């Protein structure tokens, strides 16, 4: 927990934050509306005797009272997919519409890409890319289990991603759920902080900046970008958004989120950021009894 000490100045009720980070996380699933309505999925769970509680902010997210959420008919049929509650946030903030072309830059293992497909009623094109070939098989497995027919899976570095392989030259929306130091997954992975170093923050933030820039470039004017990470480090969050604001044609926009959260930072460690970064959301584990997350929404302006 020691690396988290650096967030004492920015987290309200820091002791509650630390205590939450030490508690294990429960099992959450997302209802996959490509294959079943929320009503049908929950009826199947009830028949199986699996208790659940719906998330107040999203009727498609359920907290399950079972230790083996993968061994249910509901999961076997692909009606539900194990997905941490906060990780269901960025796709809902992106708000893709049926028929659109959407890019998920760092898509494996596919929870968010298939959620995008579901939000689009599985109509349109979701380009699910990941640079890690080993993780592509998990992405493909999940896409098939969940019945997502609108996914095109590619294996490339998002930083210099080429659209030449497709017959369109820009996306309507892009989700940049960037590789990160994963501090916010500490409740799921107790060793998440083991390799933590400021050097790693420098390294990974360089990758994040490259990906978000390419996402803005590859998205048409008026299009939407969502940038998200499962980490608290401002170097990987606000500083990355600040970087793209200064270099590409885009601006920060508001979004509604009925999960409790804190505003994005406008300064950290002597650096000042665009004041509109307050419109980003920092979700801390003690606020909703979830993992940690950062989400910012951008509009492409040219």
């Amino acid at each position: 927990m020691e690396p988290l000490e650096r967030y004492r100045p920015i987290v309200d009720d820091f002791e509650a934050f630390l205590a939450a980070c030490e508690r294990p996380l429960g099992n959450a699933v997302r209802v996959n509306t490509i294959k079943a309505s929320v009503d049908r999925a929950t009826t199947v769970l009830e028949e199986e005797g699996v208790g659940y509680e719906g998330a107040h902010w999203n009727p498609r997210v359920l907290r399950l009272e079972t230790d083996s959420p993968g061994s249910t008919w509901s999961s076997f049929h692909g009606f539900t997919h194990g997905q941490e509650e906060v990780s269901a946030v960025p796709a809902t903030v992106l708000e893709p519409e049926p028929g659109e072309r959407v890019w998920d830059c760092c898509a494996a293992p596919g929870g968010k890409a298939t959620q995008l497909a579901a939000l689009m009623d599985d109509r349109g094109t979701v380009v699910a890319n990941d640079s890690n070939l080993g993780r592509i098989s998990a992405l493909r497995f999940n896409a098939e289990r969940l019945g997502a027919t609108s996914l095109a899976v590619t294996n490339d570095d998002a930083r210099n991603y080429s659209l030449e392989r497709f017959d369109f030259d820009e996306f309507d929306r892009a989700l940049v759920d960037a590789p990160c130091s994963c501090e916010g997954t500490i409740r799921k992975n107790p060793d998440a902080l083991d390799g933590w170093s400021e050097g790693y923050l420098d390294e990974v933030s360089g990758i994040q900046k490259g990906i978000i820039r390419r996402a803005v470039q590859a998205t048409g004017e008026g299009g939407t970008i969502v940038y998200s990470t499962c980490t608290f480090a401002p170097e990987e969050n606000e500083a990355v958004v600040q970087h793209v604001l200064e270099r590409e044609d885009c601006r920060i926009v508001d979004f509604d989120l009925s999960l409790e959260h804190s505003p994005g930072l406008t300064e950290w460690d002597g650096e000042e950021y665009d004041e509109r970064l307050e419109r980003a959301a920092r979700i801390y584990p003690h606020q909703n009894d979830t993992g940690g997350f950062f989400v910012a929404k951008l509009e492409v302006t040219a």
Partner: protein
Amino acid sequence: MGDDTADGASEGDLEQNDGQRFGRLPTTAAERTVEGRASREEVVDYFADRFAIPPETFDDYTFWEKGAGKIWIYGGDAPSPITIEAIGMTCLRTRQEHWKPTTDFVQRFGREAGECVIELEAEEARAFAAGEDQDLERWDGDWGYLIAAHRIAGALEPIGVGLYVHGELRSMVPKGRQREL
């Protein structure tokens, strides 16, 4: 909806299938440019003839081949041919005597089926999902690939593909999808 190449080719001058990329199925056999490739019409007819899935179910989808006979169903935009990791989901194995639908395809589209659907009781359904073969004498329909389904939350739900021969239903659920429920 074209095939790999824009120009049709005459018999005897068909391209060999390139298993490394996705090629969209030709609309009909007459428009085929790749040797041995099934047509969209043949695929849709197969699902209609075997399982009574209405052809219009697939109006908004394209079908693609990658590898030898592995057919994918896709709802998005893409040019043909295209070299990527996956396009939609696998749905059917062709280039063999008896075409075989995939487990994930019948879970996604099998609710539309009206024939060759075998309804399993609770214990049978569990055994099927675990990958077990079982004796099922009561089936008096066609032999071959069937959609195994069970009644759950008040409606029939496809579980996967079974191969029915000699009074036995063999589960075709792939190892990675098998579960002890």
